[in-house]
């Protein structure tokens, strides 16, 4: 009886960029991240509070509902993606959102065999 062999290729040097923006703007963030070389993103819906409650009347201009965009990037490209997302998403405007980077221990996903083979040579 033969047991089939499966391998897990672990990725190191990965970092997670999380960007929280007002609902409806998540797609802009994903697009910016892809432009800067990120390969994928996950969006989920959330509700948040922050500067909105302190803006007084102007608070109506900030959406309560948020989209949280998770982007996993290689540590080398982190800076580029981070900056591009920040600038494209206009996070330097009050109420537009918040973003941060988390270091990740390791990651794994499907990696095409050719790519793995090429790297192992």
């Amino acid at each position: 009886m033969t047991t089939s062999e499966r391998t897990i290729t672990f990725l190191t040097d990965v970092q997670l960029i999380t960007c929280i923006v007002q609902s409806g703007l998540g797609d802009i963030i994903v697009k910016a991240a892809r432009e800067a070389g990120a390969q994928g993103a996950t969006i989920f819906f959330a509700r948040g509070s922050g500067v909105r409650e302190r803006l007084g009347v102007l608070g109506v201009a900030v959406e309560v509902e948020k989209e949280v965009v998770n982007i996993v990037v290689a540590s080398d490209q982190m800076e580029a993606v981070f900056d591009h997302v920040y600038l494209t998403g206009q996070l330097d405007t009050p109420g537009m959102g918040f973003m941060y980077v988390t270091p990740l221990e390791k990651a794994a996903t499907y990696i095409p065999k050719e790519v793995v083979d090429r790297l192992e040579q």
Partner: protein
Amino acid sequence: MNRGNRLYSSFGGVSIVSRHVSYNLLSPRIRRDIKGRIVPYVAPEVKLNFKDGYRLLKSYVANRFWGPFKVVVPVAVFLVVFQSIFLQPPVRDLGNMALGVCAVVVGLMLLLEGLRMGVSPMGEILGNTLPKKWPMMGVLPVVFMLGLGSALTEPTWRVLLNSGDRVTAEATPYLYALLHGWSEWLILVSGISVGLAWVLATLQWFHGWHLKPVIMSAAVPPFVLTVLAWFFPHVKEVAALAWDMGALVLGPVGMTVMLALGRGMVSAVGRGNETAQGLGMIALAAMLPVTGVLGLAFIMVASVPVSSIVADAAVIGTQIIEPPWYAVTPWIELGLAVGAVVPLMIFIMLLFRFILQEQVRGVGILVYGVVLSIPGLILLNVGMTLSLSYSGSELHSWLITRLSPAGVDGTVSRFAPGVEVAGIFVLAWVIGFAATLAEPGLNILGSHVERHSHGVLRARTLRFPVAFGAGCSSVAGVGILLPGLDPVAFLLPLWLLLLLLTWMAPEGWIAMAWDSGGVIPGPVTVPLMLALGTGLGGGMLGLGLFALMALGSILALLLVGLWGRGTIGWSEIS
């Protein structure tokens, strides 16, 4: 302070500087009292300087402006191009048209924001509070009143009554009577039907009944009554009106309140079957009025003789009625818009204040929303009138001279008749598609779906098939009206097909599909389609076109649901 400057090349011509600041320096000092407990920290208000305030407002407005803009402006450009190609006197009053289009875009923006910020949360809070405070027997009359009120104040279907002066008492006596002397009855019966639909909907939200049997059993009476009407020629002449009434009676304000009420009640009662999160019941509010109006027609035919209607019409016909000042643009739009929002909201507010004795938090923002939706509706309706009053009536007279054999006035067309007919079909598709895309009700429904599928079903997943279906069915409608066929004859087989597909499709999709049919012929679609339909329809007035559009969109969405089963199945999500 850890501070390292780094100069970036540039971003869009702006040089970027980076610096690092410790968050410790920014977070507030927390004080403790004698017992070591934290004294709650209250963040001071943020005072924005002019530039930041401007940027905040700019992005707020821009994010809401481009949506309507991208839909409305292309279709306006298309209309102008179409008219300058086909119509003998090309478009006049481009200035008015441009002004109207601007008003429509801004109006849609304000209305959508108002519905989202004010009307919808109020409905949701009411739906959430009411069943907690009152027993069922107290909730149902309130819901009935809300439904009735929303239908009576809905401005959209009034255009059906306005088109009544093209009907003659001799040709179609009962249609004439319903649009003139009996119009109060028409309105009342439709309103009561909507109220009953809201009551039924409340029961569904409470008991978590399965949607399939509810929707399918509500879909039977309109079908049976219409088939019966085939044997009574006088009832048959009213059938198209009844179906259109169903499609139009719930406008953007009414459907927003209903959807929000459902969402609130479902979350308050928290029964197991929350598949559709209050969806699926807008369809009821469309089907019951069809049944009601057809029932009214049967009663009329049985009790009022044709001769008395014709005699009454002869009396009315001799009077020339000068419209009073409040019945002309823009006052009529103003009155209808205020009427569509204010009484309903006052009713809800009074409920809170005096009956539920509940304090509503964040009243300011609710009022802001409600206040915003009023100029929104006004601008939208005035804009539609303004941009269509010229192009629409020219289009209308062009359609009549080109198409009806009786109306040929001797002018020679630049095109072969086939080209013109093809042009009309393209026009019908574009109008059906784009107007539906711009429809505020569909936008509200789309964001509801998006929110409750946690973003898995995007609003556009809903809007594009619906608009596509509406476009196709408006083409079909033109194809039916051109040779002078009765649209109702085509509604019936379509209805059967819908029931079959409904039986096969998953629950969540049914709810969405049928609801979209209930919301789409709204304030944007109706004036445009009316310009098209009355031009084509001759004696039939183009009645039935709205119902056809609604059914077409339901069909499209059901097909998408069946095709996408497994890949984007709603059932997996909830």
